[in-house]
């Protein structure tokens, strides 16, 4: 019996139910109301998830962008000596946390400031190298924004040995990192809750199909059909429902997203100078995630629905 068994297993996988696609569509049609409810629930879940996903992707993108632009400024005391400057520069260059260091003399700082305030040039014209109010500084770019604080500590170790104070966009970085964490967590919570709701609705839809075909399932069991063989069409039906929901949800989100981008002209009122993620890249990630998610939700719901009926 065992030898026959293995041989049979292979051949029954090879010849899956004939007309299985037609039967699936028929069954979806027969349960049209519940099928529609399933697809709608997947659409609703995925639209909400999609909004969160787009938000998360953009927040990540903005964070990355802002972080890469962040600089640390080490302001020097007005009476620093060349030896002090040299020592500090050496120390900074040795550190592997730092990508590059540039020295900005007081004159350069004033010049920059004057240029940036061109319209008010007359106001600044009274200043020259004798009474320059601007401090000299080192402008530091770190390799990893998370090391900002460490670099700050390093610089502050030269306090009163040439260094006056250190400044970087501390608040910005922290706020962004926190917001990033928050959107990530929120997305996961939303994902879990909405997934459970969708699975439950698909589960109920497929249960109707299973119930309608319980006689057939019983006959199949008595004639010696394997569980995998019996399960296949129901899993297919659930997966098709999930995928249908995923595709519709994607189209709705895609149209809406591009419409909104068109309205704001890519000009979102962000407090920082940063670019959003490219819409095409976002949509690519989205359809990939949606299809996997939709198919998965549908299959899981179906597996739960049929489990009870297989025990004959």
């Amino acid at each position: 019996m065992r030898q026959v068994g293995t041989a049979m297993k292979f051949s029954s996988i090879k010849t899956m139910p004939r007309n299985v696609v037609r039967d699936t569509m028929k069954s979806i049609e027969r349960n049209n109301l519940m099928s529609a409810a399933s697809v709608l629930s997947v659409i609703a879940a995925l639209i909400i998830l999609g909004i969160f996903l787009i938000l998360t992707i953009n927040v990540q993108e903005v964070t990355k962008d802002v972080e890469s632009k962040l600089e640390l400024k080490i302001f020097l005391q007005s009476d620093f000596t060349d030896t002090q400057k040299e020592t500090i520069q050496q120390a900074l260059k040795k550190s592997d946390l730092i990508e590059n260091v540039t020295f900005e003399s007081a004159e350069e700082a004033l010049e920059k400031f004057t240029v940036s305030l061109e319209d008010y040039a007359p106001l600044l014209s009274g200043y020259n190298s004798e009474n320059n109010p601007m401090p000299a500084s080192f402008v530091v770019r770190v390799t990893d924004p998370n090391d900002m604080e460490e670099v700050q500590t390093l610089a502050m170790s030269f306090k009163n040995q040439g260094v006056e104070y250190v400044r970087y966009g501390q608040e910005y970085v922290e706020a962004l990192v926190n917001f990033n964490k928050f959107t990530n967590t929120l997305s996961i919570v939303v994902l879990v809750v909405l997934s459970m709701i969708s699975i439950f609705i698909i589960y109920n839809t497929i249960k109707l199909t299973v119930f309608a075909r319980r006689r057939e399932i019983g006959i199949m069991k008595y004639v010696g059909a394997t569980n995998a063989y019996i399960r296949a069409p129901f899993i297919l039906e659930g997966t098709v429902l999930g995928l249908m929901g995923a595709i519709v949800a994607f189209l709705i989100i895609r149209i809406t997203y591009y419409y909104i981008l068109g309205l704001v002209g890519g000009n979102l009122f962000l407090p920082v100078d940063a670019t959003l993620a490219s819409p095409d890249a976002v949509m690519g990630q989205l359809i990939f995630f949606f299809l996997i998610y939709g198919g998965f939700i549908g299959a899981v719901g179906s597996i739960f629905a049929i489990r009870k009926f297989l025990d004959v």
Partner: protein
Amino acid sequence: MIEFKNVTKGYDKNKSDALKNVSLFIDKGEFVFLVGRSGAGKSTFIKLLLREIEATEGSVYINNFNVAKLSKKEIPFLRRKMGIVFQDFRLLENKSVYENVAYAMEIIGKSEKQIQKRVPLALDMVGLSHRMNHYPHELSGGEQQRVVIARAIINNPSILICDEPTGNLDPETSYEIISILEEINRRGTTVVVVTHDREIVDTMKKRVLTLEDGILKVDDATGRYGYEV
């Protein structure tokens, strides 16, 4: 070959067992009637053969194989060794006669070519070739039962189990069905018929097993109904 060795089956601790210490042996190629009042343990007997349930004590052997040792995954392959005929037919209403029989072959992965060859042969054997494209609701009870028999033998089972095959049929049709079963038996298949039909049992003069309250009361090789009504 079917063998029960001291089989006891209880469903509920508070109720008496459905089968009590039943031992029996049915050889390959035999034709056996199993009789008994309702509740005597006939359904339990069939369910044990199909491994729908497991014995509480003792063991059931089919073709020298202890069915208790089968894993869940192997049960379908045990069932392919057996054909089953139900009292209530259990045909698929939305499939034609041909499709109903072909279905049993599709399920176990036979090729379209094999199906096209074997289904007409099986339908011919039960005398339904002319009804091939009809649907179950267009057939009489006797005809429906013949379709069920064709479906049960289509995969060449070594054992054919019939649960009250004539229960819903008039006497004349019942004899036709029984003679088909006899013909199947003549070709080498072991046939077990569970029935209430005293007349048929007495006429056929086959081996009769009588169950009473879960006990195998009579095992009569000469073929008489084992209990008085």
